[in-house]
């Protein structure tokens, strides 16, 4: 009997195995011919085997978190280790509402539900509040300041507890932002909608009177509420009415809404509707942001075991990564550095940088909120410091040679290269602890299109110095990578800036010295001949080995770049660039240069090489950046 492979999932292979068996063991011969009666039997057998094998394979795969593919099963397996996948999150905007009224009521209440309508990319999105907000009326004006409005529709659902064991409280709408869920339970002795129950993450510190509910994701991205059993959490009484309000959201699509039109409903202290005496004005403090999609299957598979292993305790860097991701879903990448690794060391501190999904900085409000939530998980005596992202930009200056015979439109080819680089950046580089791999990049450019024959790519690194305008200050910029030191200078270059008390545009440049160190000078472009004069000879120091620039006290008055930024670039000693410690490595394709050059040798125009445009493998000797 031939060797039988029991793990086959391919119909044809199963069929050929059956035929092999028959060939060795049967008096029949016709199974090889498709029209034969035997062939019909073999097909039936093979199909049966195939279905059984497929089912067995699916069952086994779906039984383990690593291999499960259906969301329902992944969520269920994650639930076994206490992980609740993140729901969609509504984009939140912060606005100030001013309502004029002739009402004599002392207070005004903005009712839960629709508040305003905002637009993003020519689409309208509704914004709601999950709970009533009350403010006082002063001289006919009610102000709702710093009101957080969530993108989405406010909905309510009621359940009547019937005491049966199989009653389930499932919210039928998908796309719920679970952070907006408000649960109220009205018992026999309660008035209104009853008492508000809190969401419990786990059963620690719960007793039989705790008014809590638990939340879990069930089929089709919907959520189920679970209540206490009389031991851990208060048991629901028969006939109680559960009122659940929540917001269903469009998630990431709602991000960016800035201008809002009022559509809400306000009432007085007696619950009567107040009609505003003039148009309600809405001013936006911060535009809609932090909207996100429901946690993906891959993310659940990645974070569920990590949250489990961290046991809701932030001890190691990986614990922080998992926990921050769960309390701030907008996280794209997290860097956690123990204070003892810093220079100078800061014992007892943990330095955390977070790269949000949309944008570069976490707002002060979010930082505060993350820090507060982290306290529930962290060890006593350890301080968490959430610092702004330090981005180390990697830029390239690439000369891409192409075979003219294979190209119809050079601009198309150039955009194709840019698009490949963007994909390369997202997939390989843009993260904390990331590494820019030069050889991989060159290979990626070459393989973009068969028309590309070669490339000469030069790498530079850049950091943005955020200046304090008209304020004397010292600055330190760490690049975390050794600089290349050309003894002729031109290693450090900057964009232009203005200096207090001086006219003109100034630039930083370097003069290499002894022991891998050098001096930073400030130069000014002369009006004629494009020459430069030194304005401040010693404006700071540069440590080429550590990759660090220190600026002495200096007072900037303006910058050429927007947002008070001076871009300072250096040439890395190694073409492979790393994101050291808390540096977030970002491959800036937008600031990179791609020059398309005709390869006259390969395209056959000048096979002798005469007229071939040679590109230097080293960066230019210009004094200023750009």
């Amino acid at each position: 009997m031939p060797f039988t492979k029991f793990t086959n999932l391919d119909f044809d292979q199963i069929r050929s195995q059956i035929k092999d068996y028959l060939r060795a063991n049967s008096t029949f011969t016709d199974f090889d011919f498709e029209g034969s009666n035997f062939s019909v039997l073999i097909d039936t057998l093979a199909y049966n085997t195939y279905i059984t094998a497929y089912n067995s394979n699916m069952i086994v795969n779906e039984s383990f978190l690593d291999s499960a593919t259906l969301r329902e099963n992944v969520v269920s397996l994650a639930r076994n280790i206490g992980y609740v996948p993140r729901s969609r999150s509504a984009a939140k905007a912060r606005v100030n509402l001013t309502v004029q009224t002739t009402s004599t009521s002392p207070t005004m209440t903005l009712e839960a539900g629709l508040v305003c309508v905002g637009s993003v990319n020519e689409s309208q999105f509704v914004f709601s509040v999950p709970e009533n907000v009350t403010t006082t009326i002063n001289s006919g004006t009610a102000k709702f300041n710093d009101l957080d409005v969530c993108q989405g529709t406010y909905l309510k659902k009621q359940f009547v507890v019937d005491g049966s064991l199989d009653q389930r409280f499932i919210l039928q709408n998908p796309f719920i932002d679970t952070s907006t869920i408000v649960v109220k339970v009205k018992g026999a002795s309660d008035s209104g909608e009853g008492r508000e129950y809190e969401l419990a993450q786990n059963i620690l510190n719960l007793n039989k009177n705790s008014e809590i509910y638990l939340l879990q994701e069930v089929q089709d991205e919907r959520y189920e509420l679970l209540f206490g059993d009389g031991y851990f959490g208060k048991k629901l009484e028969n006939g109680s009415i559960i009122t659940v309000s929540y917001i269903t959201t469009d998630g990431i699509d709602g991000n960016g809404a800035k201008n809002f039109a009022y559509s809400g409903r306000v009432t007085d202290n007696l619950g009567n509707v107040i009609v505003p005496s003039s148009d309600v004005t809405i001013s936006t403090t911060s535009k809609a942001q932090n909207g996100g999609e429901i946690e993906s299957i891959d993310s659940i598979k990645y974070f569920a075991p990590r949250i489990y292993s961290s046991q809701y305790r932030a001890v190691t860097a990986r614990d922080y990564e998992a926990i921050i991701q769960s309390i701030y879903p907008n996280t794209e990448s997290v860097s956690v550095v123990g204070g003892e690794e810093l220079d100078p060391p800061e014992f007892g501190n943990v330095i955390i940088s977070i790269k949000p999904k949309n944008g570069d900085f976490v707002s002060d409000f979010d930082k505060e909120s993350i820090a507060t939530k982290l306290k529930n998980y962290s060890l006593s005596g350890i301080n968490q410091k959430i610092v702004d992202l330090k981005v180390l930009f990697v830029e390239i200056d690439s000369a891409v040679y192409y075979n003219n015979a294979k190209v119809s439109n050079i601009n198309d080819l150039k955009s194709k290269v840019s698009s490949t680089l963007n994909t390369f950046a997202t997939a390989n580089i843009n993260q904390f602890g990331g590494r820019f791999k030069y050889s991989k990049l060159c290979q990626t450019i070459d393989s973009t299109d068969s028309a590309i024959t070669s490339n000469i790519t030069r790498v530079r690194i850049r950091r943005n110095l955020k200046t304090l305008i008209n304020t004397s200050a010292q600055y330190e910029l760490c690049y975390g990578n050794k600089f290349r030191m050309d003894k002729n200078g031109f290693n450090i270059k900057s964009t232009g800036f203005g200096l207090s008390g001086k006219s003109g545009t100034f630039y930083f440049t370097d003069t290499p010295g002894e022991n891998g160190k050098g001096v930073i000078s400030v130069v000014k472009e002369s009006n004629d001949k494009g020459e430069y004069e030194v304005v401040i000879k010693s404006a700071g120091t540069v440590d080429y080995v550590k990759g660090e620039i220190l600026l002495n006290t200096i007072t900037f008055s303006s910058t050429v770049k927007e947002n008070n930024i001076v871009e300072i670039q250096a040439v890395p000693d190694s073409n492979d660039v790393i994101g050291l410690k808390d540096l977030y490595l970002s491959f800036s394709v937008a600031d990179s240069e791609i020059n398309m050059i005709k390869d006259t040798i390969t395209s056959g125009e000048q096979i002798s090489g005469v007229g071939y445009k040679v590109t230097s493998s080293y960066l230019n000797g210009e004094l200023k950046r750009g």
Partner: protein
Amino acid sequence: MAISRESRAFRDISLSFDPHPVTKDLPILKNARAITRSVQNLVQTIPTERFFQPILGSDVRASLFDFVDFATASVIEEQIITTIDNFEPRVANVQVDVDPQPDNNTFNVTIFYDIVGQDFPTQEFSFLLEATR
């Protein structure tokens, strides 16, 4: 008991599954009968009917509701020849006669072929193609 095999002989089971009256063995179709059965199976298999072999079979059934005339007969003829050429390597010199019988709303199909590598006379078998509903 040792199993013996006859070289270049074709043996197929019969899907009637009627046991032999004496030995109670499963009936066996041999050589010419096995091939005839196979050709008939191929012609009567509707494409996509067999698992994972969507092109196996002939589409003659699709023509049964067309006019019962020589034009349709020629289409059926063509389909049968193509099917046998593609899926039955044991036969050669295939000829197909399709005789339309408009009064009965049927086609009388006769197929002639030689069995490759065997000393049999030219084989012939007929069947009726009839739209049953």
